[in-house]
């Protein structure tokens, strides 16, 4: 630990101001990027994107909601690769129960998501296995169960549920979830605690944060949130098949990183990461698809844009070691 003069602090004044300007830039840059990309794609698709706004953004609800759960997890330095399987299982539960009662189905879906989150939490928190390993295992495990449950036929939701579908409803539900999440993250100790755990778990514990309990709860919460996202998913799709939700975890990861989220979490995360990232991801994806390029070309461009964006937006300064 290098130890230095007290007087140097004063001379650092300007540097600090510059640093805080930089960090403001970092926050704003993805938003600017989003706007630019949106404008570019509108030009390239002759305004079709903005004309069919509701259609263009129809994908964003599930991404936004489930990203929020993972955002909490990543804020405290964890990872979760089981999100896709959580979405799949919860979708199956919701579809299966929608015949009886819609409210029951939603509650059960959220509970199913929470239950998988609980399993993740158990192995991660209680057994101290890296979150990365645990969630890759549970991703596999529950994907198997999803396949088993859909072997003979996809699980279809009843009309009770799918008839509820309307864009305003989806927008409202998504907005409610996000606003609640935002308020908790920004205006209660919840957010500060998560950031503290991400920035230094041991120190957070010594400052009185119940780190294990918080970590445990967040995994359960993220599962529950994705369980709720499954409700939106089922509203839109109407059924759950063997690959419902597959690759969702990668989508979320890409979205959050595009939104400027530092992958190791900590103090520099910003709730805006969730929103900007999800929209950026959807605009990019949809925009390229709408341009009518062939799939490999689309993907080639997507890969390159993604790397360029991450290169520009990612906060690499706070990462001393990049793994």
């Amino acid at each position: 630990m290098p130890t230095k003069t007290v007087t140097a602090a004063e001379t650092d004044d300007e540097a600090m101001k510059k640093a805080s300007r930089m960090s403001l830039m970092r926050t704003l840059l993805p938003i600017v990027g989003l706007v630019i990309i949106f404008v570019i794609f509108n030009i390239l698709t002759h305004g079709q994107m903005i004309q069919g706004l509701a259609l263009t953004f129809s994908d964003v609800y599930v991404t936004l909601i489930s990203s929020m759960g993972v955002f909490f997890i990543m804020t405290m330095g964890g990872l979760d690769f089981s999100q896709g399987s959580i979405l799949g299982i919860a979708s199956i539960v919701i579809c299966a129960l929608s015949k009886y009662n819609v409210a029951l189905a939603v509650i059960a879906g959220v509970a199913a998501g929470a239950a998988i989150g609980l399993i993740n939490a158990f192995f991660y928190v209680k057994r101290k296995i890296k979150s990365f390993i645990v969630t890759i295992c549970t991703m596999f495990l529950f994907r198997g169960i999803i396949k088993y449950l859909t072997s003979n036929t996809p699980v279809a939701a009843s009309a009770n549920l799918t008839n509820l579908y309307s864009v305003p409803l989806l927008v409202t539900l998504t907005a409610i979830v996000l606003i609640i999440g935002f308020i908790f993250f920004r205006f209660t100790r919840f957010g500060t605690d998560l950031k503290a755990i991400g920035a230094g778990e041991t120190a957070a514990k010594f400052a009185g944060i119940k780190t294990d309990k918080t970590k445990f709860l967040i995994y359960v919460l993220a599962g529950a949130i994705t369980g709720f996202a499954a409700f939106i998913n089922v509203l839109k799709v109407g059924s759950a098949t063997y690959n419902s939700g597959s690759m969702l975890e990668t989508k979320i990861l890409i979205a959050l990183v595009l939104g400027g989220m530092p992958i190791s979490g900590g103090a520099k995360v910003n709730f805006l990461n969730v929103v900007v990232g999800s929209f950026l991801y959807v605009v990019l994806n949809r925009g390229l698809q709408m341009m009518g390029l062939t799939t490999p070309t689309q993907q080639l461009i997507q890969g390159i844009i993604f790397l360029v964006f991450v290169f520009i937006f990612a906060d690499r300064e706070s990462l001393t070691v990049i793994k």
Partner: protein
Amino acid sequence: MDATAKPAAKKKFTGKPAGYGMLVIFIFVAWLIFKILSPSNFGSPSQMMTYFNAGLMAATGAVGFYFVMVMGMFDFSIGANIMLSAIVGCVFANKLVQSNTGLGYVGFVIGCIVTGALVGLCNGLFYVKLHIPSMIVTTGLALIYEALGSYFAGGQLQTLPSNVRGLGKMPGNLIVAAMAFIIAYILLNYTKLGTYTYAIGSDEFVAKNMGINVDLYKVLAFVISGAFFGIEAILTISFGSSMEAQTGMLSMSRNFVPTMGCFFGLAFRKYGIPLPAIFLGEFVINIIFYGFIALGAPTAIQDVITGLALLLIVAITTKVRKGEVVK
């Protein structure tokens, strides 16, 4: 730092015998359970050989990937790499097989390994030069590799010529896997690369101060890992005989089995047998998998078993240390 970190070295039943002992017990218990449940169509010596063979492909990739994982990095382009390498190797094999039969193998093997290594090089360079977390950079690159694979394959099934398929079955696959294992073993234990791999994994800063060219060795680890996935591609396409270009991140479904093999390696690292543990770990999972098949269980169970078995084995071998920070 805290000087009270750990009590002095204590002697207990550790090291290689303990590790091998544990693995042999896993193998035996798995075998025994299914042998009892399904004596007629499970667990004969030749069948055990088949189960072992089934794990070879992923294990071969995993031993290379171990270098990357130990350094604390990750790779999401494994599947794309295997796909791309297999396609390129296959194209080479088809081109060369017409002119001369012997060259078919040469073109195939070199095509796969070189492509794999190049993909690894690309991963490594982008990671090191762009300073983006490896998990992210390889996700972006996987999209690009998939696109390239698709351009190469041009919508056609890439089928390996029938006279170049010897590496897909006994003893060809065993020889390839054994060679891969030996190379990895030597690299890890008998070259400075192995030492540096662990050094970088332990503390990059200190390693850098010790004069280790950290960036170089990170790139090297990716190249090695890539080349081993090239070898996995050889075994995979030889076994199945063809490869199709996949897009839309579908190739990522191939990521996880080798990754899990690697988890075994990491879990048994403390016993000093990471690489053998990868092979034996895959063996255990395959015993269980074929055991369930013998019982007539649906295949969906495969993913469940792989996930569960791995989770439990990692849980058993992980010692819960209080106050330890695990991310």
